[in-house]
Structures are given as C-alpha cells and as structure tokens.
C-alpha cells in the first residue's frame, strides 16, 4: 500500500470528523437533551435547554460550529496491528487540525502556557493530543473530541485514604458538581475514573465523560448501580441547566476503573459540557474511509 494514499486518506477523514464533531451533536446526546427538557420542572432551566436545542438545530442548518469554543482537539486512536503504515498516522492527524482550523473554521485556542503566544492553528507542544491503542485487525479507527475549556476548568483529582473506599468516591463526585456549579455549562456528563494512578484516573475519567455513549449502561452491575444512584443524587442539588435552578444538572454519570496500588485510591473527575462533541473515522487498509457519530 502506498503511504502517500494512506496519509491523504487519514488527513481527509480527520478533517471530515472534526467538522462533523463541531457542527453536529451525536444522536445519543440529542436524545438525552430532549429527555432532560421533558423531565425538567423549572421554567428557567427549561428555557435554557430550549435555547440549546434551537442552537443545535441552527448549527446543523447553517453548517457552523455549534459553540465558539471548539476546544483543544483530542484524538483517541485505535490502530489494528495489521494496518499497513503507522508512520503516517501522527503527521496526518496534526495536519488535519491545521487545515480544519482555517476551513471550518475553528477558533485558534492553543496558547503557550508561559509566553501566552498563540500559533493560530490549534497546534502546539503535545497538542493535538493523540492517544493510541492497538487492536486486532487491519483498520485504523479514531474518535475526535474537541474538548471545551469551560468544562475542563472544573476537573478534580482526589487521593483520599484508600480505607474510605466508595464513600470517598461518592463524596468527591457530589463535592465536584457542587463546586463546579454553573461553570461547566450544565447539564453535564460527569466522568469518574478510579484507580490506576493519578494520570490513569483522569485519563479514564475523560474517556468516560467524552467517549461513552449516553443511554448506555455500565457492563459492571455494581458500577451501574453506583452511576444511577449518583445521577439521582446530583440532580437533587437543584443547580439546573446553566445553573439557573432545576433538575437538569447532569445528563449522566459514567464510571470506569483500573486496578490500584494498595496505598492509593485515585479519583479523577472530568466534566463534559452539554455540547458533547465527538465523531469517529474508520479507515480501511486501502484508504477508503467512513465518518460516523
């Protein structure tokens, strides 16, 4: 297989996936927002969700990014062991961000943390973030997540004494949502990552918040029960959509875990605003691809 053809295919697929992600809200998210609207009792909160739904519709119609914060681009890549070339993946994914910034357009968000300099193309040191996992098969698949800054701002890492166990987890989640208040553009998805280590907990939390489909159940019955229990509890806080008061504080709680060291119980909490943006591209070894949500 010609590397050049694959390089072009990955780049094209990534541009298409970024465009799809920033313009169109995935069907599972739209469904969850409509449900939140129907279940909301507070008039002020309902009005906020109504504006959200109207905005989603307008963005689709006008083919424009639905929110001006098009985020930092995150790629979650799954590459088959038999995929013909690994060498072209990173280069094509980075290039796609540069091109998409101009053509869609995206807001130039990458800023040097010390000098404040903005290169203007959403590229920078370690950004776009590219996370690669290997899988069986000969296909390349990646999900693009444009992650906004407002919801990221209220992320939490807790390292409680491990003896506190699940009580510490529940308290950390309630505390984080209360502290976040209206800042992360509720209704949010709360991603919770447990165990592994500090970095692993946050990584799992972010994946749980941004990648897992709404309406899906946790395959682990214990975690499934905990998710539902926390969902109910958090929506009793009364924060509501955009913090104006109401039931729609969270759309879901998603929990994932890794085995932990006996001396630590890392708890990572990552928020995803209502504008859950993601799209996936699947590329075959011959360079043909499809983009879906």
């Amino acid at each position, binding site marked *: 297989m010609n590397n050049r053809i694959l390089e072009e295919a990955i780049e094209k697929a990534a541009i298409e996936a970024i465009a799809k992600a920033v313009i169109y809200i995935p069907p599972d998210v739209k469904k969850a927002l409509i449900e939140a609207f129907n279940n909301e009792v507070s008039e002020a909160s309902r009005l906020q969700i109504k504006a959200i739904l*109207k905005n989603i519709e307008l963005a689709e119609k*006008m083919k424009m990014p639905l929110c001006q914060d098009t985020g930092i681009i995150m790629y979650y890549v799954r590459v088959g062991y038999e995929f013909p070339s690994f060498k072209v993946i990173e280069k094509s994914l980075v290039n796609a961000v540069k091109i998409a910034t101009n053509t869609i357009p995206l807001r130039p968000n990458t800023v040097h943390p010390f000098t404040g300099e903005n290169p203007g193309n959403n590229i920078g040191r370690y950004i776009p973030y590219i996370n690669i996992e290997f899988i069986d098969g000969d296909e390349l698949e990646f999900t693009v997540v444009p992650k906004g800054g407002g919801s990221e701002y209220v992320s939490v890492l807790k390292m409680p004494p491990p003896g506190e166990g699940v009580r510490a987890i529940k308290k950390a989640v309630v505390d984080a949502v209360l502290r976040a208040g209206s800042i992360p553009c509720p209704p949010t998805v709360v991603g919770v990552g447990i165990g592994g280590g500090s970095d692993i907990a946050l990584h799992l939390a972010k994946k749980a918040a941004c990648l897992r489909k709404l309406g899906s159940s946790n395959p682990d019955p214990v975690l499934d029960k905990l998710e539902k229990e926390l969902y109910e*509890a958090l929506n009793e806080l009364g924060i509501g959509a955009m913090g104006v008061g109401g039931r729609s504080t969270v759309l879901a709680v998603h929990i994932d875990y890794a085995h932990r060291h006996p001396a630590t119980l890392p708890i990572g909490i990552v928020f995803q605003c209502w504008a859950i943006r993601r799209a996936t591209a699947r590329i075959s070894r011959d360079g043909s691809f499809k983009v879906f949500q």
Partner: protein
Amino acid sequence: MIYLLKTPLQEGDVRKLKVGDTVYLTGVVVTARDAAHRRFIEYLKEGKSIPIDLRGGAIYHCGPIVKRINNEFKIVVGGPTTSARMELYEADVIKRLGVRLIIGKGGMGSKTAKACREFGAVYTIFTGGAGVLAANTIKRIIKVEWLDLGIPEALWVLEVENFGPLLVTIDTTGRNLTKEIIEGAKRKYKEILKKLEVI
C-alpha cells in the same frame, strides 16, 4: 416578565428589571473578555481614553469565531464565555464607564452585584454554548477596536436585533440568582450525602 430593550439604556430601564426576568436586546453590544477588561482598567488608571463610549451600553463576555470573507469580517459563532473571570474588573467597568447591562454565562460575584446595585446595572446570562443562536441575532459589525489583542479578545462593536433570551441573574436590588442556587444546593448537601450513605 419579558422585556424588549433598546440601547442606549437609561438607568430606569435596568432598575425595573428583576432576577428571573428575560430580556431581548436590540441595539449595540460590545464584546469584551479577559484582555479587554484588563486594558479598560489599565487605560482608566493611566487616564487614556477608551475608543468606545460605553455609557448606557451593553458588554458581552464573548470570544467569537470570526471568518474573513473578501476582506470583510463576519462573526459566525459567538456564544458567551465564563463571566467569573471578569469579576476582578467588572465593578470598576460599571462604575467608571457607565455600562448598564452585562451579558455572559455562569454568573458573577458579590463585587459586581454591589456595583450593579450602586450604579444601576444588571448582569444577565445567555445560554452557554449557544453560539450560533447568538450570532444569528447580529445584524452587522459596526467596528472593531483593539484587534491587536487577537480576534477573540478584541472589542467587537455589534449591532444586534432581539439578542436573547437574556436571563437577569443579578439585579439592582442586590439579588444574585447564581449565589442563591448554590446556597440552596449547599443546604441540600448533607441530606444528599446521608442518602448516599456517605455520612
């Protein structure tokens, strides 16, 4: 109550607004976020003049996506940004520049609420993330100032028509809805932890 307001705003226009009211604004709105607010304060300190008269005006916490088409700017997406970051400066901006209406998201703190009460201004929120809905009410760009701060941070002077719904969350009586909601959540906190068997 729903109010249709036009700029320039008189003190009486905003004194009648109460927490929970909805405003649709027609007239001129000026975008300003972190860097512009910092510069407002810097210029006021140094006695330099601000390029736009904000008396009776509306400030919008927004860093838009701007497209350049045939050398002309167009704001394609422009929802609100988190207002809490402007808490450091807003009270002075209200006091010294005579702004009557602030538009943002997420709420503001007690310093801003105090300035709103004293000088006659309100803080309103527009739905966070609803950037296309907001941009759709922009009729034209009147002008842009301080473009050296970068596109998202510049002062975009916009003519808007029925910009809203803007929910009043800080009025001129000292009420602050965001604060009240969080205080309400804090009151439920213990009961919720008990239910979860944390305490």
